[in-house]
């Protein structure tokens, strides 16, 4: 049972890290010669179009969220501060989902700006309730790791068991 649990948690970590590193890259990639193709600009415009945050907070969110995603994805992947990093990612996902629900309740037709051209489960284009389900699905492994820890090759766990053995 423990082996299964550790395996599942390990796979969750790999999936979370891959997903959030990809999402972060979409939000950070430079635009080259394109007018609005830089990641931060597109992400800022996407946040702004949600009409939830004032402009100065849009700038802050567009600057900080991608780097939070990178940082947490790396920490989750290597297994350092795993639960804390997964907690931050869970909070981010809850925030994203709340924003999507808010947009849908206000009957706004918006795109997500989450994963660039990649579509996970929902069709490309305007967001619908499918996006809420998709976010909930991503939230599950984040919460699992936040609550249960990192499973195999989790440096936090290995360090803790070494410390216990030494005492």
């Amino acid at each position, binding site marked *: 049972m423990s082996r299964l649990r550790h395996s599942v948690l390990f796979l969750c970590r790999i999936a979370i890290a891959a997903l959030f590193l990809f999402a972060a890259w979409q939000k*950070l990639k*430079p*635009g*080259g*010669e*394109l*007018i*609005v*193709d*830089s990641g*931060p*600009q*597109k992400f*800022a*415009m*996407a946040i*702004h*179009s949600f*009409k939830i945050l004032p*402009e100065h907070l*849009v*700038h*802050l969110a*567009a*600057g*900080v*969220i*991608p*780097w*939070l995603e*990178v*940082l*947490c994805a790396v*920490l989750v992947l290597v297994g350092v*501060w795993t*639960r*804390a*990093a997964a*907690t*931050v990612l869970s909070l981010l996902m809850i925030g994203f989902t709340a924003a999507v629900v808010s947009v849908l309740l206000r009957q706004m*037709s*918006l*795109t997500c*700006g989450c994963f*660039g*051209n990649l579509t996970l489960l929902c*069709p*490309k*284009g*305007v967001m619908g309730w499918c996006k809420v389900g998709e976010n909930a699905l991503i939230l599950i492994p984040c919460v699992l790791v936040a609550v249960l820890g990192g499973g195999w090759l989790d440096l936090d766990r290995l360090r803790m068991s070494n410390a216990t053995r030494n005492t």
Partner: protein
Amino acid sequence: MPLILVQRTLAIVGLGCVLGAADSWLRPTVITLKDNASAPRSEPAPTTPSRSAAARGMPAQTTTPEPAPALSDKATKTPDATSAASLGLMIDAKAAKALFDQGVVFLDARIQPEFDAGHVPQAFLLNSTMFGTPAADDAMKVLDANAPVVIYCGGGDCDASKNVAILLQQAGFKQIHIIEKGFPEWKELGYPIETAADRTNAGGKP
């Protein structure tokens, strides 16, 4: 243990803020929600095909794909590549008129009734709710992603143009311009307007 978790969570958030601030500081482009968005510091000089090439076979303002509009002589002129490329994302109606005179494709991001009541001549209706429909898919196939496009909506708080711009960016469009104050400014300046009735009278085609 929970206290350590909270401390680590806050530390991660703090470090994320520091990284975000450093990235914003070092990045050569500036995020802006209003004017000349993210224009690189060095201006590119891409080629800009004409509206005739860009719009050939473009579906019209209805959701049913239709053949291309018959373009006027004016519309077949080759756009001035330099002037189109040197403009930022957000432009005013005067700059838009200059692009219109050069034959650049115009996209109307408003809803059908507003479009029918009056729009920029030869503009195509393409709002974000149409993306994913066969009409929009066909439009994306025939529009030239390397050609400049001008998008407009109702101005003011209207974000429809930005939404369409994002979708076009995802589809690979490279030169997108948005009329910041939208169709009201175009109308206010007395620039040419076409209604659905005008198009019908002209032969039933967009």
